[in-house]
């Protein structure tokens, strides 16, 4: 007797939907998977299937490599950007395969920015941008739904926030190189990408829901990020510097709107926005943009699925049932006809903030404090917002893939045990071992894709200072409570009444 899920054709699974989240799917016809499993794996030797699963489970491409970050991330936090970049470079081929090229270009591109190698940074970030664009044409689900694979085996196509912020940092690179026209090109690209994001996942989810392959309904999370204040801030400064004050005004209005139309992202007090024109008294306007902390990392949430007769149970190690319900929408399902004894896991990535330890950043000119920076953008919140847009697809395809794998596994285990049962007690014992090995192997192939760039910052803070034109010794101090964490010496800087007087400062702790 096969242990595939047994149920009537018209006995629909309950329709689980996450109440508080963007997800999920329901499987209306689980026996469709049985048919798919049989069609995909006809006549395969069960030992070969289990051996293949074990081999796949041990394959490096089935897990996200994090080795390259063990030393490079602490180095970047301490300001040793060039050394961190060296480690990333050396990891190419080992921890970064070709499928991870977007990640490699992003990681190295950002470190080169922090190291002050602006031209090199732009080359790398441009490569990342092009690769992300190319990967847009690739299927995000078909490959992953294949037997034995998980998302780690696919090309990493970048998170949307990475695609957006890479243009911001390319713009800062161009500004540092004195090419303000090219900087503005990058800023304009941010808005184009935000416009595309508006419908990107809605279209994908609509396509899935209306396709003949749909085994449930994915719920679209409405995009509520369409206006990036950090990009607008830089745009305003660039327009003001070239004397396009009306364009600067439009950026200023868009920034103002963000606090009302995107209050869930800009959920803090609005800072003083830059002046639209240089002051008439001939003063120089100096703008400080400071980045601190590191962008979020991805961690895996593992959900174990176990079945008892007629029931499917969802559990998470170390978490209560309420936690599972909050995150998935349910923690058990009543499914008449389901056999007991199924055991498999599914993994989803979630974002974990790395924040910044700096709670106060002050600017000093010639040793005298002239401004405390105000928060302009929580980049980690933007990262989370765009991450959640994609989540229904991530979760949907994970469940489909895991279910397909486990149907095939159970079919294989049944066949093996049937063969071995005829060989007495030893055979029974061997069958049991094979079953456990199959469970472990298939579970091991189901790993969340934890790839995400590590060197974007967490917060952007700014200040605008009006001073007499001239040369000043500029320092930026990063404080945690009463402790001075870091004093960044920006040296002697000359500020003029016209043009762009921008200082970028950073400390990634």
């Amino acid at each position: 007797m096969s242990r595939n899920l047994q149920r009537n054709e018209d006995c629909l699974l309950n329709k689980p939907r996450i109440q508080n989240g963007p997800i999920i799917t329901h499987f209306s016809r689980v026996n469709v998977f049985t048919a798919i499993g049989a069609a995909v794996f006809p006549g395969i030797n069960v030992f070969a299937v289990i051996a293949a699963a074990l081999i796949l489970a041990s394959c490096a491409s089935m897990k996200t490599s994090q080795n390259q970050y063990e030393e490079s991330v602490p180095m970047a936090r301490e300001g040793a950007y060039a050394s961190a970049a060296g480690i990333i470079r050396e990891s190419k081929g080992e921890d970064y395969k070709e499928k991870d090229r977007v990640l490699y270009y992003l990681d190295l591109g950002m470190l080169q920015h922090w190291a002050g190698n602006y031209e090199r940074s732009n080359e790398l970030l441009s490569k990342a941008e092009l690769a992300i664009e190319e990967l847009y044409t690739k299927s995000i689900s078909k490959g992953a739904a294949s037997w034995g694979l998980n998302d780690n085996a696919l090309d990493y196509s970048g998170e949307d926030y990475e695609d957006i912020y890479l243009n911001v940092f390319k713009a800062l690179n161009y500004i540092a190189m004195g090419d303000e026209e090219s900087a503005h090109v990058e800023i304009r690209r941010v808005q184009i990408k935000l416009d595309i994001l508006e419908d990107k996942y809605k279209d994908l989810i609509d396509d899935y829901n209306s396709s003949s392959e749909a085994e449930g309904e994915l719920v679209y999370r409405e995009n509520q990020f369409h206006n990036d204040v950090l990009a607008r801030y830089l745009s305003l400064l660039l327009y003001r510097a070239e004397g396009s004050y009306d364009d600067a005004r439009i950026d200023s209005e868009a920034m103002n709107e963000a606090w009302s139309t995107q209050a869930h992202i800009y959920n803090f007090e609005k800072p003083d926005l830059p002046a639209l024109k240089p002051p008439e008294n001939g003063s120089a306007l100096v703008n400080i943009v400071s980045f601190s902390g590191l962008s979020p990392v991805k961690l895996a949430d593992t959900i174990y699925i176990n079945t008892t007769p007629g029931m499917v149970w969802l559990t998470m190690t170390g978490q209560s049932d309420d936690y599972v319900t909050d995150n998935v929408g349910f923690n058990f399902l009543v499914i008449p006809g389901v056999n007991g004894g199924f055991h498999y896991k599914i993994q989803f990535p979630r974002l974990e903030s790395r924040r910044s330890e700096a709670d106060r950043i002050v600017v000093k000119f010639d040793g005298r404090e002239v401004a405390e920076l105000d928060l302009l953008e929580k980049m980690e919140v933007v990262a989370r917002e765009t991450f959640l847009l994609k989540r229904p697809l991530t979760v949907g395809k994970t469940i489909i893939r895991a279910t397909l794998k486990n149907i095939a596994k159970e079919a294989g285990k049944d066949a093996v045990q049937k063969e071995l049962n005829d060989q007495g007690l030893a055979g029974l014992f061997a069958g049991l071992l094979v079953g456990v090995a199959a469970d472990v192997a298939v579970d091991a192939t189901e790993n969340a894709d934890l790839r995400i760039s590590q060197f974007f910052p967490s917060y952007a803070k700014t200040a605008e200072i009006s001073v007499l034109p001239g040369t000043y010794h500029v320092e930026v101090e990063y404080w945690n409570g009463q402790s001075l964490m870091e004093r960044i010496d920006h040296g002697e800087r000359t500020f003029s009444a016209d043009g762009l007087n921008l200082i970028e400062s950073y400390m990634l702790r």
Partner: protein
Amino acid sequence: MKFVTKFAPAGFILAVLLFTGCATTSVTRTATDEVIDLSGRWNDTDSRLTAEYMVSSMLSGGWLGRFTSEEGRDPVVIVGSVRNRSSEHIDANTFIKDIERELVNSGRVVFVAAGDAREEIRAEREDQQSNATLESAAALAAETGADYMMQGVITSQTDAIEGKSATLYKVDMELIDLENNQKVWIDAKQFKKLVERKKNSW
């Protein structure tokens, strides 16, 4: 033998995967005026066609006839800046060179060098005063002053949905009388590029 039979398909698949991993490079020479659109971005063809249009439009403007009849000579034109306010990195120098070529080849205006080229020539002329013979050294203060300056700006607007993007490029050019700042000719060329990318699908 049984082992071979059982694993032959796997071997075949492995071989296919290995062979598909081999990359080859092929190069095809094409005429420089052949239209090749790969990425959908601004390219050399856009630059050339826009320059041809602009110079043709400028030379057919009423200002040219008025100038030649009033002054009895061809006008002297200099190409100033072309600002890029698009969402792409456009090499304005290539576009400026295309315009300069069309102007010179028209034979209807006198064209003088601008920008860095002019500085380089001046430096060479200075150098000649010390190092060249008196007869062969180029005279100082004998440059031809321009009557008009051509300036422009490139803008773009992109609209995108469902894997399709349409970019409208607009190139605005104008010719300014250097004596009185009067704009004697203005024209704009617009063209749209539609790029369709096969979007992610299930």
